């Protein structure tokens, strides 16, 4: 039987972070993951992350994964792939399936970081081929390069549903509708706005009543629901689709912890069965820790911090780190974790209806119901006096209206045009005293693709709008296409006057369109004309 100081189960962001910290303290560390590739969910996440610099904000998920792997290798962590932990027994013994062999391993400390599994909902036809989890769709597209279908309906408006809808469109699928039984969009408004301006209609307070087809999905029927979530007869709508994606939440895969005999609790706010843990993730069994989604569904950014905390705690448990050093280092991590737990989407705010931002501005109801800001919202958020004291010429317009833990836009602008301040959940403000050069770094750094550069004085009667564009093929300068509104409504022809891509933009293309000046505050997306008929 092989022995280690620490064995980590799961090579996702939580597990890798834990292993890195522990190995850096001098521990002999092994990580087991049942997949052929390490990284857990991270390598599927091709979008830029939220947060602050310390949370690796504006970096795409897969790049964070690459960094973690390099750090783990450097710290001397042994990562075993295609290694499924099948059982956990007394005195921290693990049974691991590797290929055709069952092997036993033993460790003095164990960290379980097995992540979560997707929830399902049932309706007539839900077992037909073509009904898939959103995470499965993401795996197909981003790990294996397979398009899940041509026409897709997404159920679930949380961040997973919103992010995967956008990625489906990036992969060339048509997303015919976004449906959620809840009366309001559950995820970040900026994610919703990104897909709304591509023309995806939102059906809140709706659910799927049936998947149509005999051998595979050929269509889907949705209906409005009443206050008890029961479908209202007569409100049915049909869509031709070949794929139905379900993004209806995740459940912690906590079986190993239960098997080990940890005290478990059923906590709906954490996603289901989770272990009772202290602030560093230690369970009721000394030396056995849990980190990441397995101890409560959150996100990769917090999973990495939790992982590091449990790694340090494991090191201190075995004496590889003094209690004082542990406390000092944990204090910093606690602050970083706490800053992610603030704002409108904080774990404590779950299920609460929020009427106003921290700044006292009434939140956009249109954003919560349709996925985009309406004219009245623009008055409150964008045309605030602190935003519009602009001189003539190019200036940023920031359409980020919810208190989310995010601030890369502030760091991006070396001219000091954008201010978030110390509290990273504050809404970004424009400091009109500083003049914008139009460098575009703010657009490319914004994880929510919520920043635009507008120049009302581009040419007599015309404005220019620079917007983030993450689709292929890249539009060409001189091309004529269609300008779309925030709701994806065609506004008329738009000419591309500039296309910029740079290493610093990290694969976000900055497209500048020329539109009639009255569309300066309405045009927010560009569609090549060839697609116009299809979408």
């Amino acid at each position, binding site marked *: 039987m092989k022995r280690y100081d620490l064995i980590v189960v799961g090579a996702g962001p939580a597990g890798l972070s834990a292993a890195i910290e522990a190995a850096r303290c001098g521990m002999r560390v092994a990580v087991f993951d049942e997949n052929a590739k390490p990284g857990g969910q991270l390598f599927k996440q091709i979008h830029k992350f939220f947060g602050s610099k310390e949370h690796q904000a504006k970096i795409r998920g897969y790049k964070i994964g690459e960094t973690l792997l390099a750090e783990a290798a450097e710290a001397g962590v042994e990562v075993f792939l295609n290694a499924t932990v099948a059982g956990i027994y007394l005195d921290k013994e693990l049974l691991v399936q590797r290929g055709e062999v069952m*092997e036993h391993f033993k460790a003095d400390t164990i960290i379980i970081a097995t992540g979560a599994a997707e929830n399902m909902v049932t309706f007539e036809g839900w077992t037909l081929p073509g009904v898939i989890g959103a995470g499965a769709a993401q795996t197909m597209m981003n790990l294996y390069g397979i398009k899940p279908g041509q026409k897709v309906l997404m159920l679930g408006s949380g961040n997973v549903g919103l992010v995967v809808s956008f990625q489906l469109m990036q992969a060339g699928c048509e997303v015919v509708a976004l449906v959620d039984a809840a009366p309001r969009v559950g995820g970040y408004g900026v994610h919703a706005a990104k897909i709304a301006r591509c023309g995806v209609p939102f059906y809140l307070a709706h659910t799927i009543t049936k998947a149509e087809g005999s051998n595979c999905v050929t269509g889907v029927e949705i209906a409005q629901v009443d206050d008890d979530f029961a479908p209202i007869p007569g409100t049915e709508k049909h869509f031709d689709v070949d794929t139905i994606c379900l993004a209806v939440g995740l459940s912690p895969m906590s079986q190993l912890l239960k098997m080990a005999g940890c005290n478990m609790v059923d906590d709906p706010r954490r996603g289901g069965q989770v272990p009772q843990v202290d602030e560093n993730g230690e369970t009721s069994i000394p030396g056995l820790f849990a980190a990441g989604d397995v101890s409560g569904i959150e996100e990769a950014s917090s999973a990495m911090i939790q992982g590091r905390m449990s790694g340090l705690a494991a090191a201190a448990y075995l004496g590889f780190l003094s209690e004082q050093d542990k406390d000092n280092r944990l204090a910093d991590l606690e602050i970083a974790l706490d800053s992610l737990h603030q704002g409108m989407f904080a774990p404590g705010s779950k299920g609460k209806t929020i009427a106003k931002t921290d700044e006292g501005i009434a939140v956009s109801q249109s954003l919560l119901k349709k996925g985009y800001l309406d004219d009245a919202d623009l008055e409150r958020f964008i045309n605030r006096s602190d935003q519009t004291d602009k001189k003539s010429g190019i200036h940023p317009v920031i359409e980020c209206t919810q208190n989310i833990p995010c601030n890369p836009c502030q760091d991006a602008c070396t001219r000091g045009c954008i201010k978030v301040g110390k509290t990273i959940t504050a809404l970004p403000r424009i400091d009109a005293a500083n003049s914008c050069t139009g460098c575009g770094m703010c657009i490319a750094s914004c994880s929510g693709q919520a920043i635009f550069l507008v120049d009302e004085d581009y040419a007599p009667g015309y404005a220019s709008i620079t917007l983030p564009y993450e689709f292929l093929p890249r539009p060409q300068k001189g091309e004529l296409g269609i300008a779309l509104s925030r709701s994806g409504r065609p506004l008329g022809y738009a000419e591309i006057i500039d296309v910029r891509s740079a290493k610093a933009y990290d694969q976000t293309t900055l497209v500048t369109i020329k539109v009639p000046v009255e569309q300066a505050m309405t045009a927010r997306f560009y569609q090549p004309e060839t697609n116009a008929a299809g979408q």
Partner: protein
Amino acid sequence: MKSINDRSQDIGPFVSQTDDAIIICRCEEITKGEIRQAIHDGMFTVNEIRRYLRAGMGLCQGQTCGKLVKNLIARELNVIPDQLDPATSRSPMRPVEMKVLGNEEVAHV
């Protein structure tokens, strides 16, 4: 918990529902109606449903239907799902072929 272990409680008669034919456990092809009927036969826990019907004993080991079965039991018993225990977790966590399970490397280093 007390009410759930009380087998004498009257949960009313089994009344068929229009969507009883929907499959809940895909691996073992068990329908909603079969599970609801089993509850009325006296199977008040996820473990009992597992043994009685094999729901959650297939390839995915209840990864998909575990929560669904729990919600069905909760609804029939008129309790909130958190009051019910999920199925017992046992090794092997994932389905494994017998020849592999038997191929144990006991004296490794």
